[in-house]
């Protein structure tokens, strides 16, 4: 059954993408660690960390593409799942600091000592174990997505309304995590991490390993997403996106299918957040900001929604552009980003990948038509109003 799932999930584009990602996972760390610094092929450590961050963003965009591209749920709250995964990882990293913190308390993180807390709150228990934190990275966002989605889809909140309440959700979480008495470090969030699984988090080797982990995780998620999309279930999802009522009348449990996809997507976003935090070394409530979630939407839109590979390309391109732009002309970045939003929606509604593959497909059609006899083409069927 698993082989069947694998076979079905692989088409040529996905195979190429996964191969590229795995190759990156091997070669970038290898060139960073093994080649001498003056070699032209050497990748400096800061670039490894930077591209590692892009890969986690790509994973987040992929998660969004799964719900937005294939299921028509424009979530403006995916940043919340990302941040929750990040916080779960951050809590593990905080507990790894142990007595090396500024106040030297073996159990309590620095900010709790600072706030005069006497003992660890219950929700911090277990985060000293990596396996528990790793579990929470998917369980917490998954649970939130389940509860939220269960209510929302059951009462048929959809379209714009869903977008707005997901935005309200991440906004509420933003406000909540800013509070000091929530026990998540308030305004400053969690930072000053020392090591992960016993390895120094600053060391080049750890960075390279985290990069490899991000690339492999992205490849794996791509495989899963593609498996979902290319299954029969995936076809029904597209049906839900395009004509929800019709699919419902055909007897499918639309709510359940949407809920499943939403939860899977939230879990992916959580994993992305968990990989993001050790590479940037901080997680704070700013990650919940509604603007961040909207930015994820633009990565996906630039790359091309409902293409799976598009969001990965979009996330890397937009963030690469952001890094370069904010370095060169910091005041123009928002102009560029704003213009990108407008231009993509107006001129590239299918995104980069969608437009290119559309172009290739039409060329193929054209050649086929040229070689075969011309057949009369029916007008496109109009959607009923």
């Amino acid at each position, binding site marked *: 059954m698993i082989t069947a799932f694998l076979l079905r999930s692989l088409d040529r584009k996905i195979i190429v993408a996964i191969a590229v990602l795995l190759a990156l996972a091997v070669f970038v760390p290898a060139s960073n660690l093994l080649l001498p610094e003056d070699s032209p092929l050497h990748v400096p450590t800061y670039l490894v960390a930077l591209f590692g961050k892009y890969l986690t963003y790509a994973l987040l965009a992929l998660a969004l593409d799964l719900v937005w591209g294939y299921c028509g749920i*424009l979530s403006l709250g995916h940043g919340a799942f990302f941040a929750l995964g990040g916080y779960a990882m951050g809590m593990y990293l905080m507990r790894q600091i142990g007595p090396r913190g500024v106040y030297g308390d073996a159990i309590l993180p620095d900010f709790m000592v600072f706030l005069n807390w006497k003992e660890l709150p219950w929700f911090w228990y277990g985060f000293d174990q990596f396996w528990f934190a790793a579990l929470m990275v998917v369980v917490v966002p998954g649970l939130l997505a389940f509860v939220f989605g269960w209510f929302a889809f059951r009462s048929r909140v959809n379209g714009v309304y869903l977008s707005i309440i997901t935005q309200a959700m991440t906004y*509420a979480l933003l*406000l909540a995590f800013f509070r000091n008495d929530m026990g998540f470090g308030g305004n400053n969030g969690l930072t000053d991490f020392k090591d992960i699984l016993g390895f120094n988090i600053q060391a080049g080797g750890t960075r390279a390993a985290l990069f490899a982990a991000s690339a492999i995780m992205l490849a794996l998620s791509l495989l899963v997403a593609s498996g979902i999309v290319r299954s029969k279930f995936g076809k029904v999802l597209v049906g839900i996106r395009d004509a929800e009522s019709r699919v419902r009348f055909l007897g499918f449990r639309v709510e359940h299918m949407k809920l499943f996809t939403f939860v899977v997507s939230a879990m992916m976003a959580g994993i992305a957040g968990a990989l993001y935090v050790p590479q940037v070394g901080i997680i704070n409530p700013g990650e919940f900001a509604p603007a961040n979630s*909207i930015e994820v939407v633009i990565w996906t839109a630039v790359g091309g929604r409902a293409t799976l590979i598009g969001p990965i390309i979009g996330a890397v391109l937009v963030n690469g552009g952001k890094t370069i732009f904010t370095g060169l002309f910091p*005041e123009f970045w928002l102009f560029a980003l704003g213009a*990108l*939003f407008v231009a993509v*929606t*107006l001129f590239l509604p299918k995104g980069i990948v969608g437009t290119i593959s559309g172009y290739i497909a039409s060329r193929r059609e054209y050649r086929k038509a040229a070689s075969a006899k011309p057949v009369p083409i029916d007008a496109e069927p109009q959607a009923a109003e």
Partner: protein
Amino acid sequence: MFYRLIFAAFRIFFVCLSLALSLLATKAFAADDLKAMVNALGTASFAQAEELVNNLGKSGDPNVVPALEALSEGDLFVRKSDGQVFLTKRAGSKLELIDPLTGASAGEEAKSALSKVKVNNSLRRAIRAAIGGLTLMSPDRTVRLQAAQSILKAPSADSLEAVETALAAEQDAEIKGVLESARAVALLSSDRSLDDKKAAIEVIKERGGRDSISILMTAANSADEALRPDIDAAITSIENSLVFADAAQNVWYGLSLGSVLLLAAIGLAITFGVMGIINMAHGEMVMLGAYSTFVVQNIIRTSYPELFDWSLAIALPVAILVTGAVGLVIERGVIRFLYGRPLETLLATWGISLILQQAVRTIFGPTNQEVGNPSWMSGAFELGGLTITWNRMWIIVFSLSVFFALLFLLKRSAFGLQMRAVTQNRRMASSMGIRTPWVDAFTFALGSSIAGMAGVALSQIDNVSPNLGQSYIIDSFMVVVFGGVGNLWGTLVGAFTLGIVNKFLEPYAGAVLGKILVLVLIILFIQKRPRGLFALKGRAVEA
């Protein structure tokens, strides 16, 4: 050195002498004595200075007020060479000396030749009480009222006599009321008889209000055991009457917040509700309105200062034109290509909002700009225990008038009729000869200019910065979604409900948690009624 010691000894002697004098003749002070007492402040210890201040207060001579005020502000300096005390004013690198009693200039002196007369908080309290006593007899009514109120805030047994003298002479009923309370408060800390104090507690109880409770609390700490039950009873009775006042206060704050939400959301209700466009740049329209006000005020300030009270009235049409024009450009340039794809209008308008924000940041800078309140917007008045500020009051009035004007426009004008026709059935409207593209464009411009009007109003109560719009956009969406799309009444009810619920939750949950609770409540509410309070019914729902 030796001379200075002698000098200091002389000064202490003088302090004792003046104290003795003050006991002998509380009322009659010659100007020379006052001068000597002020000079004595220069080297007195805090305890001595407090005595001196009290005595200056008892002198009843309003001429000492500037010196006392300067002392409390830390502007009183003593000249090291001769121990004379002066008020000072900055004059270049030097300080200009001013005689503390006559106000005449007394030359300049380098800073190094002067040393500041030190002041601490207990001294400041004494000064406030002394000044209060001195100004109680002023012929100016507002000065007397302020003086009575300042004594009420910083009661001390020392000012009791002054208050009683003033009370006997006072004619004005309002000042008399304040003075009676002040007398009662001062009496509690004096050594009068128990019966007097019980009567005083009654007076304070009658007065009510939150600060009365704190006055009684402090009194309870130092009071006689025999007074305790009376004080406790008075506190409970005040607290009971406060519960009602609190509720009224919350409703008022809620109405005020609701009117702000209404202003911010009502334009959104047009673009979102009527046209189905998710305008994420709506907040930026509010911001542009606020910045228009800023620019108009700046021009008025520099060129026509006498028009300042009219600045908002002038800014209003300017803001409407600016934001309406920007809205028109956005609709014609971007949005008209995106009809029927609501999620994509969301992205495009978000991009526009980023551009507008950054443009304003580039032109005006990222910091808050100062927008002044015209005189009729500032100040407050009391209404049955509620303090109502004029700016909040006017904003409620303004938002309601905008609402009803809009309602009138939609229901009674030809343009409103066309707009409703296009909303209900675009094709049919088009076949009847309505130019739907222009109706769309002007509807969007209308929504934008209402946001601009909101910006004019919000500039009066919020910081005018490039992020102004961001803070309102989510709340405005909540209002529209909660109230129900496509129905202005829903927006009205939604805005005021959310405002009042928010303000009622705040005292129990804190401001942030209250807001989170409201968001959660809305999310839950949407589950129950996915289309809001006043949902459209029928075919339009699925469109």
